[in-house]
């Protein structure tokens, strides 16, 4: 379960400061899916980064399965990012000079897992891109890159999958495929899915939604979501 309690985030100091989040609170049931919506600058990505252990909130707390995230030591936060969560980025962030297989194995490489090829192949198979395993990622199409990114996100079997505008750089046909894969993972593996998007069509498919404006929740819906 994800519990967000009154988190705020302020960038900068004094006159130059900017408040990206303003006392945001909610609870999301384990295994649920959530879309965080809002316009550019509304605080969607900041909220996701605070949940994912990437950006420390200025105040408030984030609890994952009842354990406070940001009071943990940095090493524990690193372990959380490596083992509890998976990331899908709009810009993929793949190593272009490395093969698909090498890119997918990175989380397990960081974890120190020796035998990781089998798991990487299994993840690629699940995302129907196993045949590209030995290709350099720079030779892949946008849709293929996003599937590699997804394979990298799920290889460590995370409890929560975060995706930041996962279809932002894809055409509509490829977007549909990626969306279908995200929901398939959410349903089949029971992975909690948190997606940041301003794509209304994508948002409609989510059972739970939060709409942010100026760093505050202005509307929400969903049975597994408590504000």
């Amino acid at each position, binding site marked *: 379960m994800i519990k967000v309690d009154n988190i705020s985030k302020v960038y900068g100091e004094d006159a130059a400061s900017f408040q990206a989040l303003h006392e945001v609170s909610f609870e999301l049931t384990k295994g649920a899916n959530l879309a965080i919506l809002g316009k550019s600058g509304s605080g969607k990505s900041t909220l996701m980064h605070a949940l994912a252990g990437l950006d420390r909130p200025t105040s408030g707390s984030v609890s994952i399965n009842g354990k406070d995230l940001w009071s943990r030591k940095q090493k524990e936060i690193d372990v959380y990012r490596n083992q509890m969560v998976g990331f899908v980025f709009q810009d993929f*962030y793949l190593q272009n000079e490395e093969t698909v297989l090498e890119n997918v194995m990175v989380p397990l490489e960081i974890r120190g897992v020796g035998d990781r090829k089998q798991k990487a192949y299994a993840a690629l198979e699940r995302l129907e891109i196993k045949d590209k395993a030995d290709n350099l990622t720079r030779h892949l199409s946008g849709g293929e890159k996003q599937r590699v990114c997804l394979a990298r996100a799920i290889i460590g079997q995370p409890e929560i999958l975060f995706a930041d505008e996962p279809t932002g750089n894809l055409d509509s046909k490829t977007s549909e495929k990626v969306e279908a894969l995200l929901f398939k993972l959410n349903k089949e593996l029971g992975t909690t899915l948190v997606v940041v998007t301003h794509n209304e069509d994508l948002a409609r498919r989510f059972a739970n939604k939060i709409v942010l404006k100026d760093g505050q929740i202005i509307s929400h819906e969903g049975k597994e979501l408590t504000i």
Partner: protein
Amino acid sequence: MRTRDLVRRGMRNLRRNKSRTVLTVLALSIGAFTLVLTLGLSNALKSSVNSQLSLATNNELTVTLAAENKAQTGVAEYNPKATAVTSTQIRGEGATIQLLTKEQVDAFAKISGVQRVWPNYNISAKYLQLEGNAKKYVVDNIDVQSYSDQSKNMLAGTYPSNWSATEIVLSQSYTDTLGVPASDLVGKTVIVGYLDAKAKSVEQKFTIAGVLKKPTGFRGDQPATAGLITISIDAAAKIYDTQFNGTRDFNQYAYTTVLLQSPNDESSVRDAITALNKNYSVSSLSDIISRIKTVLNSVTYALAGFSGIALLAAAFGIINTQLMSVFERTKEIGLLKALGMPNSKIRNLFSVEAILIGLLGASIGIILAFAVEIFVNTTFRQKLIDIGFGSHAILISLPNVLIVAAGLGLLSFIAGVFPARKAQKLDPIQALREE
């Protein structure tokens, strides 16, 4: 992340920027090459000096008496009663000394720890003649017996361990000139002719105990040692008596040799000699070795210092290379951090890359130095042996290699600290957003 994966990732990153890595490695390898070669040259020199000096005994002291007026400027007044003052060469060094008297020399023999004392007899011979052979040959120099092991220097026969007054050892030149095999000369009788104090010719018979190989090294290029004979101290004393008794210079010696019972007695005997007269100057082989080694070490350190400067310059190359790498790979660092790679591992990754550059540079430098070593030693082997240097001009040792490799690894690690810290401090979100 496992160390193996860290190294593999580091190597992959270095391969990604081949030209930059190659240039940095090349700069380091030049420094490593120079350093290893310098150490190898120094080793060969030291080894050569050691092998040359190992033939000499290390329990002999040479005693001279410093001239009383040595600090005076100008010329001293002549005193017919005073012991002669002369300039001489002692162990290759010029010195102004006062001659030693027989009483002074005899006093040294009474010192505890002294086995034997014999002065520099300064004797000479005119010719050497093989008995039954009409031809006579010049004697260039007479050596007195040595107490060091000369067995390695023998061409034939033996170097007597317990010399009798009638034994003689000839140099190889005689067997070459006579055209008789060295082994055939052993046991034969030779006649040594010399002049007595009244310039009258005297002949003395000796039995050939052995033939010395042609001298190499320091003495190898001295033509005066071609006709060299070696006789016992007793025989030398007898010839001295015949040549100098009745002359003004009789029983006056430029220096004297003091043979110790054991090398451990050196310090006490030195003290006892200088206690007799503070003007006595005592030198030993260890003094010479120590002086030569000091000079060799100074040269080695100076050359190694220059190589060190080259390596220092190369270290800045590593800093530059790694800093550029951090800037270029900001997004990658952000991603690795986002995926849970701890800061310490990010730092280690860049340190590993720096160390790999260092070790690669060291390896290439060392391999090049070994190649030069093999080439020089093979090409010039015979020439080196001929001039008595030994069989190696360069002698690279395992400790040299290990020191250079470890030193370069450490230097590279230190050079990589700043870029590694820069990478470690990057914020994952900012790094991912970097354009």
